[in-house]
């Protein structure tokens, strides 16, 4: 057993850190956010040129054929930097769905432009309040035309291509829908995390292509959610660790009662708890990365990582504000950016209670099987 990343993988992570430090500082994140930009176009170009978008795409489709272990390290850095780019939508969902279920023709048609960043992808499942199971969704594809309303869709405003969960002829399935063609209306929604805008996307007989076979629909949807959950968990991990470090730095430099506040056990112990919870999440994330790369034990590993990373990011982002005191509650200080990103990531793939239920169901299956 070797429970660590390789030297090459760590070098890649280091270079990602450097790139994001230069191109996506929190000052830059704020600039994009406050200008109301849907994403940071310059940063998108940089990461496309660095080849990140093609991490999991084989070379014959325009990717660099790295792998999941490389992807998750990039995800950790993107999460830590709060980068304002549709990376997760394009890479964990659109590209992953094509790799998972796309025909040879679909892969050839879509992957090269997704790899170069020319095409931006997104994922549309939710239909308003709540987290229904895929089978209970209302959007429907009939004779190759999608009708229905998807809300919210992260990056739905800017994406060119959506992977949509909808009812087909034989139940729920994955569909590819061009967002710039006929029958698509979209509008940005007001949201808490302004660094990652969300939209309402309405389809009225929009042309839709099936991904994979209809009868495998539910299994493919579950597999896609599990696969996406792993790099998303790494984004959450990156965010959690960043919050812990921010709190630590502040506790060392902020003085009260004539001493650094970090010398008080009430603050010291809080930051230790942030470290411990992040470290446990890291271990669960590492296992999930291995499971993803080796196509083994993924349903359990993905749910475990997602639950742990969600809990870690929520805890650390909340307690980071608390450690900062009054300044932490201001718009001008940075903790709220992480606090809001944490909630977006926690809810995006369905709330934590659903993932706990998914986990138990997966355990049941493993031990019965």
């Amino acid at each position: 057993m070797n429970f660590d990343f390789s030297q090459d993988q760590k070098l890649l992570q280091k270079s990602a850190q450097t790139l994001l430090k230069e191109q996506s500082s929190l000052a830059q994140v704020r600039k994009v956010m406050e200008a109301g930009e849907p994403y940071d176009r310059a940063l998108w170009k940089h990461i496309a040129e660095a080849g990140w978008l093609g991490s999991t795409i084989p070379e014959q489709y325009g990717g660099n054929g790295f792998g999941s272990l490389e992807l998750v390290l990039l995800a950790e850095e993107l999460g830590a930097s709060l980068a304002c780019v549709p990376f997760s939508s394009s890479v964990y969902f659109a590209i992953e769905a094509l790799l998972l279920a796309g025909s040879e023709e679909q892969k050839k048609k879509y992957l090269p432009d997704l790899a170069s960043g020319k095409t931006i992808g997104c994922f549309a499942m939710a239909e308003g309040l709540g987290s229904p199971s895929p089978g209970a969704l209302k959007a429907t594809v009939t004779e190759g035309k999608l009708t229905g309303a998807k809300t919210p869709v992260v990056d739905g405003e800017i994406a060119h291509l959506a992977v949509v969960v909808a009812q087909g002829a034989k139940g729920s399935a994955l569909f590819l829908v061009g967002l710039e063609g006929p029958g698509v209306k979209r509008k940005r929604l007001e949201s808490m995390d302004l660094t990652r805008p969300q939209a309402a996307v309405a389809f009225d007989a929009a042309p839709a292509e099936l991904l994979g076979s209809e009868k495998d629909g539910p299994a493919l949807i579950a597999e896609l959610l599990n696969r996406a959950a792993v790099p998303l968990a790494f984004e959450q991990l990156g965010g959690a660790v960043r919050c812990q470090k921010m709190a630590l730095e502040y506790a060392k430099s902020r003085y009260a009662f004539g001493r650094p506040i970090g010398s008080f056990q009430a603050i010291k112990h809080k930051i230790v708890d942030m470290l411990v919870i992040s470290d446990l999440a890291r271990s669960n994330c590492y296992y999930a990365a291995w499971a993803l790369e080796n196509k083994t034990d993924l349903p359990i590993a993905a749910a475990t990582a997602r639950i742990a990373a969600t809990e870690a990011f929520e805890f650390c982002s909340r307690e980071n504000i608390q450690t900062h005191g009054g300044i932490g509650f201001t718009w001008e200080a940075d903790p709220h950016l992480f606090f809001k990103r944490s909630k977006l990531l926690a809810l995006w793939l369905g709330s934590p209670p659903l993932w706990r239920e998914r986990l138990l169901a997966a355990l049941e299956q493993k031990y019965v099987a």
Partner: protein
Amino acid sequence: MDFNDTPEESKFRAEARSWLEASAKPRKGSDDIFSMFSERDDGELVQAAKAWQAKKADGGWACITWPKAFGGRGGMPMQSVIWGQEESKFNVPPNIFAIGIGMAGPTIMTHGSKEQKDRYLPPMLRGAEIWCQLFSEPGAGSDLAGLKTRAEKDGDMWVINGQKVWTSGAHYSDFGILVTRTNFDSPKHKGITYFIVDMKSPGIEVRPIKQISGGANFNEVFFTDVRIPDANRMGGVDKGWGVALTTLMNERFTIGGGMGMGSGFGFEDLIALAKRSSWGEGTAYQDPAIRQRLADLYVRSKGLQYTGYRAITALSKGGIPGPEASGGKLVFSQMLQDMAALALELQGPSGSLTDKSVVLQDAIWQEAFQWAPGLRIAGGTDEVLRNIIGERVLGLPGDIRVDKTVPFKSIPSSGDAS
């Protein structure tokens, strides 16, 4: 990154398994899954444990990571984990040698003289001699350096007077590691001296302490003019604090690291319990609120297990166990407390019974429930562990101290106010 055994590891695993198959019976159901907390430390059990340890020593399995020079296997930390995984599948006597092998042994290897290593390590490894730890005192627990047990030089002997407490296994131990005060005029950390003491020495009296669980496997140990040869001193006179820190770090690794590495500690037993407990119209396992808590416990137990694997990977690459090991113990003891609490709830009104004719799984969860509060205190309380991580890992400033630089004798203590 690879979770599977390397070819060398799988060869080692096969070798371990085949030796175990030839030497022990497989574990059935919940046989002794909490044997490490077991109250059952009667003479018969001690003899069985010693016999098993000697058998392991003959087979070369007693101390996987100890250097060959001291009779160990000279193996890698990962091999020790593999051995632990395989051994846990067999019904073997509880390990009562952890204080020796996990704590006293590494301390002797680091700070002991050649004579001490030659004399004490081989029988420790074979389980022929059992060790206990004489550190805490009634007035010195978390603040260990506040200890007052006095050691005075008399020729080439030292004379010990004072009292130790919370000493697990003192009543069946052959030797103890002992910290004493040799200088009351220096600051507290600079007047401590570390000894090896023969527990059969005249003047030592061991009195059992009854615990909240009703059992009594730790003790008070009283010293009245106990004589220890100077040859049994480890480290310099007044320089014992540094030696004690080596023991404490290994203690946290033994308790925290060791425990997290089992596979999904007790979780499958918890699921089995939920499935057998009537709950409304169905079973507890079908209750969504229970399922949420089970999922959280699974996630925590896996996080702990994989964190252990990360630590082992770092060790295999030449790292040494650092203060990070404190985190494992912190998480484990609270998790055990939460698991046990849930397990009792799952049993409904019967959960408060310990009668094995009624409760399931041999009342192990009731035992765990009553043990867990102690685990959060022993070997560094949750609060002390957080200080250690905060200060040594995160580099946060220590609390303002009023006792560090003044002579030990002028520090106020609990009795002074009355």
